[in-house]
Structure formats: C-alpha cells, structure tokens
C-alpha cells in the first residue's frame, strides 16, 4: 500500500469544533430582527440543544453568530469587556452598532493575519438615533452592511425567501418571515434544529426572546420518496 507522508503538525490553523449554523437578520419598519436556532453541532452530531447564539452588546446592539461556538464565547467576552469599560468612562459617549461592527471586523481581520482565525460569521444588528443597522463580518474580515443578511446555509436557503418578503414589514410580519425561514432551513439543513431564538432591536431597546419550538409539517408531496413508497401518496 502506498502511504502518504505525515502532514506537517499544525499549531494554529484550526477547524471549527462545536458549530452553530445560519443566522438571519432583517430590517423591518422601526427596527431590526435577528433569528437563529439554538443547536450546537459536534460535526454531524446534534450535541448541545440549547445554546444561545445571540448576545446583547451595550444598549443598542445584538450580535448573532454562526460557526465555532467557543470562538463566539471568546468574542462575547471581548465585547462585554469593551462595553464595560465604555460605560465606565461615563462620558455619555457609547459605541454605536456601526462602531461594534467595525471593531469586530478589525478583530477578525487581525486574527486571520496571524493565521489563527476566529471561525465565525457574525451578524450585527442595532438601532441608534432612529436608524436601524444591520451588518455582517466573517472569519476573513469581510465586512458589509445590508437590509437583509443570512449566514452559512441560510445564505442559500433563507436569503431568497427574505428578499421576496422585502423589508416593508411590521414587527409581527418580520417575526413570521423569520420563523418560516428557519422552518424551511430545518427541512433541508441537517445541522438546523426547531428550537429557535429571536431578537429585536428598536427604539424601545434590545429584546432577546427565550428559545422556543417551531412547528414542522412533513406531509408535502415533495417530501414523499416515491422510490421507497412505490407511488406518491
């Protein structure tokens, strides 16, 4: 048998271990909404069923994360530390959602330059001075702002549904869109779960909801496998 030489030992370059999948973000009339499920996958194993992947930062911002969850916990503690010192200055000057987005972008870019990335795709949502903010950052340091954002598999499955829904939505309508998107995502993504969490940011401030179950329906004819059942039901 032909053998390959052992690969060089890798000390910094890593791979994600416990991961979360798609985070969705959408602007609606008077605010921004983030949604994701609460599954922490260990490879293809559904390892942790209730992991919260939405983090409040300061008074106007929520950060949601897909990718490696331990890296996100590190990022969360960095953000907490920063917002603590920000409020400790007590100068009436607080970091805006855009500031936090830029900060995260620099952190991610700096880590990729060291070939030691924080393996996440982050979505930053905020509401400040009457204006909604929605931005994304990834492990390379790619940064952009948009009205609709979806990460990882959600980019393929949910983004088209969200584009179709548009941004001229009430809070209740936006919530329906998000629930439906995560339901459709669950139908096709093996690393999704039905336990989800939704956060809203508006003039009233940040509101991160508790995890709850969404319903599923498997009776669609497209889900019936004719090759197993002989004929469509």
């Amino acid at each position, binding site marked *: 048998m032909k*053998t390959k030489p052992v690969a060089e030992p890798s000390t910094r*370059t890593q791979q994600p271990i416990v991961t979360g999948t798609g985070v969705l973000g959408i602007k609606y009339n008077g605010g921004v909404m983030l949604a994701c499920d609460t599954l922490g996958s260990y490879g293809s194993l559904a390892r942790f069923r209730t992991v919260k992947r939405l983090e409040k930062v300061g008074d106007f911002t929520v950060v949601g994360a897909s990718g490696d969850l331990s890296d996100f916990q590190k990022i969360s503690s960095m953000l907490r530390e920063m917002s603590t010192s920000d409020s400790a200055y007590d100068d009436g000057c607080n970091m805006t959602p855009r500031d936090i987005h830029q900060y995260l972008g620099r952190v991610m870019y700096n880590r990729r330059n060291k070939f030691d990335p924080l393996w996440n795709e982050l979505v930053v949502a905020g509401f400040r001075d009457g204006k909604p903010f929605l931005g994304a950052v990834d492990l390379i340091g*790619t940064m952009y702002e948009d009205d609709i954002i979806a990460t990882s598999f959600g980019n393929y499955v949910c983004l088209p549904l969200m584009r179709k829904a548009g941004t001229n939505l009430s809070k209740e309508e936006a919530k329906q869109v998000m629930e439906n998107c995560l339901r459709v995502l669950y139908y096709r993504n093996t690393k999704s779960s039905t336990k989800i969490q939704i956060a809203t940011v508006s003039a009233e401030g940040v509101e991160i909801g508790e995890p709850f179950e969404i319903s599923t329906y498997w009776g669609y004819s497209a889900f019936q496998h004719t090759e197993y059942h002989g004929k469509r039901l």
Partner: protein
Amino acid sequence: MQAPQLPTSQVEQPKESRFSPYQNNGGTCLALAGADFCIIAADSRLSLGYSILSRNTPKVAQLTTKTCIASSGCNADMVTLQKYLKFKIQMYLHQHGKEMSTPAVAQMLATTLYHRRFFPYYTFNIVGGLDQNGEGCVFSYDAIGCFERLKYTVSGSGHALIEPFLDNLVAYKNTDNKPTIERSCDETLELVKDIFSSAGERDIYTGDFVDIYIIDKNGTRYEQFPLKKD
C-alpha cells in the same frame, strides 16, 4: 549529508480543509481620464462563489477632493487598505496643512502594497483624479504595487471583457476611425454606463449598481447607475 527521512504513516491521512486567508469577492473597477476631468467607477456587488452577499457595498472611496480609489478582489483586504489610506491622507493633511496630490496618493498606494509583498493585499486597485496641473490622471496597479500612469484602465473580474473595448473606443487602436475631437465628460460618462451594462450581461461578478465619481475642476460629483440584478 542526507536529509533525515520523515516518518510515514501507515494509514492514509484524512482530508483536511485548510484555512485560506483570501476570498474572491469579485467586482469591476474602471477609470477614464480626460484633458480636465476624470471618471472613476466600480460596481457595488459583493459576491462569494455563486452567491450575492450584498448588492450595495461600495468599492470606490473618495480620498481627497480630487482623488478617488476603486478596489476589487478580497473585500476584507479592500476595507483594510482603504481605511489605512484614508488614515495616512488625513495625517498628511494635519502635518502639512494641504491635501495630498493624486500622484502622491498613487505612489503611497504602491509603497503600501509592496510593504505586504509576501502576504499581499489581494486587491486590484485603480486611482483616479486630477494632477497638480488639473489634468485628468489614472493609475493602474497589480496586487503587489507595480503601477503605471495611464489615460484609461480597468481591473477586476470584468477586466478581460472591457479592456479590448477601451483600447478600441478610447485609444482608437485597431481602427481607422480616429476622430479629431476628444470625447467630452458627458460622452465619457455615457460610455462608462454602457460598458458596465455590457459587462454585467456577461460577468456574473459584475452587476446591481455602478458607483460613478466624476472629478473635474469644480470638485467631485457622485452618481449611481442601476445595473441588472440577475
């Protein structure tokens, strides 16, 4: 002396997906210089593979009142590079009490790119503006800082589609139709719009909107031109 033999494993190694610090986010940049004006433009699509991440992420940045930069390639490097250039230009303004000239910005960009010679900024840049004499000027770069002053240039994913047309329509290469009068600013603007519309038809990484900056003696004017979203 012989090199020591590396130990070999008996089992085949599992496939490992290695971390790559680069991403190609696509995009096309274009600049055309006239006698007393310069037009610099880029589309605003941010792509990754077959996905469109965003339709409205600008690639052109205004650096001074008469200099703009457009960059395509890796968005992360683009953001970093443009941020750094803006910072350096602001510091120059504070230290010298005057704006940096376009050729000076162009030289600084080349130096900045070459500083990262062995871990390059994966960006394809164009600098456009007016020089000290008020003449339109365009600078074209590779990713590691080789640059050249030109009359027109294009870079990014639509490069191969657009460049031969500019050779023909701007430099009048390979044709006998050499007009005696130069193209005006408005005519050049129409040409830029047509070029981007055409490139958007064939290049999947070009589309959504074009951000156009028109620089002349009166200052800088911005215009957004819609492209097809497909």
